[in-house]
């Protein structure tokens, strides 16, 4: 009775809703861009119709799909930094989740409709909630304001796009990161070291000890093993914490593939030998797995080389300023209007909410008294 990581992955939303072929990914983004271009052109014309001063003849020049990607990638890098640096100092898994939310959001939305700056803090806030690191919105906004770029951020601005984000995420809040597979690899390798030391494998172990020694170590001293594994782990982690999160690999490959691609970057020979152990008698499967791992590796290496081209980003930003959806600029106002509709529907809920708040405040007070300091002297 055991579940493999693979069967678990197959039922995950990451696989069911958020995995695509490269072609499909491109066509989705093209569709989103086309849809936004059409809607925004209409919206801008509507706005111009009611505005005397605007030049009605001026051409409406929308972003291309590539320009959208340039912006999204630049803001992903910013989001990574925002989450990991002070004052948030969140673990990379939480920030990585936020980055994936951000990328998933822009699969079905264009930066022309929702500017990345409007979306970015909300994805980070949502990730703190889904990854059990939540703080009060007020505190979150306060920390954000401590950063020069966000001096004026209000709680309302942070939270306004949350609803459209959750909708774009199709209410799937779980992101499967490749770190677990990497820890699995490390444990497995350290286990193999014992095989070499003991000169014989555990019952059912598929390789002769000499093979493990000869092939995996390639003549290296078994006692250096730990070091090799450690170095591979470090290099792989660097890729998993950087390039993997910023590239499209989460959309294209399973977490285990991403892990092996990162390991392959660290030490190709060792990684392939390692894959050899379970795949020894299955050449076809091995070829397929290896092909996938190598394809993923290419994407990772490309992403690692990619630098944000500041001039290009500035150009696209300037272009974006002229083709934003005029009806979606005031998200706080839009959000308030929707909530107002909801409140009218749910007058009754108000009373319940009030009662609940009173109970909550009382229980919070009582909770402070619970195990009060005088009683438990530690």
């Amino acid at each position, binding site marked *: *009775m055991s*579940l*493999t*990581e*693979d069967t678990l*992955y197959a*039922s*995950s*939303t990451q*696989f069911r*809703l958020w995995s695509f*072929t*490269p072609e*499909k990914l491109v066509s*989705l983004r093209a569709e989103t861009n086309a849809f*936004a271009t059409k*809607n925004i052109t209409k919206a801008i014309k509507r706005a111009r119709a009611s505005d005397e001063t605007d030049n009605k003849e001026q051409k409406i020049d929308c972003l291309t799909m590539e320009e959208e990607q340039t912006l999204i990638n630049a803001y992903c890098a910013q989001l990574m930094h925002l989450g990991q640096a002070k004052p948030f100092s969140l*673990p990379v898994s939480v920030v990585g989740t936020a980055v994936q939310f951000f990328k998933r959001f822009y699969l*079905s939305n*264009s930066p022309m*409709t929702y500017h990345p700056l409007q979306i970015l803090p909300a994805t980070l806030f949502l990730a703190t909630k889904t*990854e*059990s690191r939540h703080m009060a*919105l007020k505190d979150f906004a306060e920390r954000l304001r401590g950063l020069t770029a966000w001096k004026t951020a209000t709680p309302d601005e942070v*939270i306004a796009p949350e*609803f459209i984000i*959750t909708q*774009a995420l*199709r*209410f799937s*809040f*779980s992101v499967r990161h490749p770190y677990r597979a990497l820890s699995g690899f490390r*444990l*497995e390798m350290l286990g193999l070291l014992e095989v070499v030391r003991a000169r014989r494998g555990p019952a059912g172990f598929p390789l002769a000890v000499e093979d493990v020694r000869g092939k995996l170590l390639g003549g290296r001293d078994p006692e250096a093993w730990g070091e090799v594994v450690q170095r591979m782990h470090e290099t792989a982690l660097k890729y998993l914490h950087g390039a993997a999160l910023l590239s499209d690999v989460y959309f294209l*490959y399973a977490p*285990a*593939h991403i*892990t*092996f691609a990162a390991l392959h970057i660290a030490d190709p020979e060792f990684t392939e030998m390692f894959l050899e152990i379970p795949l020894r008698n299955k050449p076809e499967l091995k070829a397929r797995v290896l092909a*996938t*791992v190598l394809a993923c590796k290419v994407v990772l290496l490309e992403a690692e080389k990619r630098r944000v081209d500041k001039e290009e980003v500035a150009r696209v930003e300037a272009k974006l300023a002229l083709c934003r959806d005029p009806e*979606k600029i005031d998200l706080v106002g839009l959000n308030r209007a929707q*909530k107002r509709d*909801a*409140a009218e*529907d749910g007058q009754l*809920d*108000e009373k*319940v*909410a009030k009662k*609940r*708040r009173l109970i*909550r405040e*009382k229980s919070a007070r*009582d*909770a402070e*008294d619970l*195990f009060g300091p005088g*009683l*438990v002297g530690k």
Partner: protein
Amino acid sequence: MAASPLNPAAASPNRQKSNGKLKALTVQPKQSEVRSDDEGDSNDDAPVNLAEKLNNEEKRKYVKGKKLGEGTYAIVYKGHLRTDPTQLFAIKKIKLNAEYKDGLSMDAIREVKFLQELSHPNIIPLHSVFSTRDQNLNLVLEFLPLGDLEVLIRDPDVNYSIADIKAWVGMLTRAVWFCHANGVLHRDIKPNNLLIAADGEVKLADFGLARAFADPQQNMTYNVITRWYRPPELFFKARHYSGAVDMWSVGTVFAELILRMPFMAGNTDIHQLELICQAIGTPLEDNWPGVSELEGYLPFDKDKITPVRTRADYMSTFPTIGSVGVELLMSMLVLDPQKRATAKEVLEHRWWAEQPRPTEKERLPRKAGGEQRMGEDLKRRGGEVEEDGRRGDKVAKKLDFSSLR
């Protein structure tokens, strides 16, 4: 190894999913769209993006019917497929809490996050999630018309046997095993969160307090699990805990099924701890190494110490399940969470193979009366959990430690 790319399903994720995927995010505009008659979109509100289009399509698939019941943070309606009224669902509409200013509430996030990932015969299936224009979240769940285990336990007109208990506890344990294998703690296992499907299958529901296993460095809140089902480590404010917390709850549900009343029904947290000491034994360093270092632990008065209960004690309280059954029950109610049985160990226990064999699910006893009784039956009792202000708190009375010294 823990994760391998070897499974063909995962090895070539792109091939086999491309069909499903196409459906996932591509929306073919319909020739003549049938407008939903319930709340929501008006004609002049064209969707602004693919996600909204998809959401509208999802919403239109279902028709909301009469109200089935109401919980603290949700109203549950009966629903059916627009295209096939015989396909029933429970539509759980999360109340928009005007007081909660921090966006989507943690309960809703947890419930949706975990139910979306967990697919198992003993966990309530979540078929779909959609929102309405007023930003309410709707969870389309399997319709479970036969109430829950609490209803059966309390209903004097329902008789059930050891074989029935065996079937129910087995289904519960499989659900918990699956959660734990997926790295999820439920943290609110109790009879009224165990709903019963039309075919008798028990389904673990209400993941509003669930969370993923924490990293070793990360603290967790000890303020979870309804009091009667809460393990001792949480009363001692353990900040790091594991699936063992859920296993204690499974043990207390098992005991309650046998006794037909709550095994340890404390009125306050401190009373609950007293009941645990009496019924199970006083937690001490020698039966639970390290317990005295927990933040909330307090030394017990020497002449008030109860030794850990023996098998003979359990046999006299739970004579009907036999000595093998008692052995299993005791393994879940071990004070030290490190020594408590895991879900896997429970499932591998020899009690399951022993006579009588578990009743087939279709033949399990059912509650008397009809659907309309549901909801009324489910008046909450003592020891509710409060966290993030949810779940009405009848708990936090000031504690009186003098009784323990």
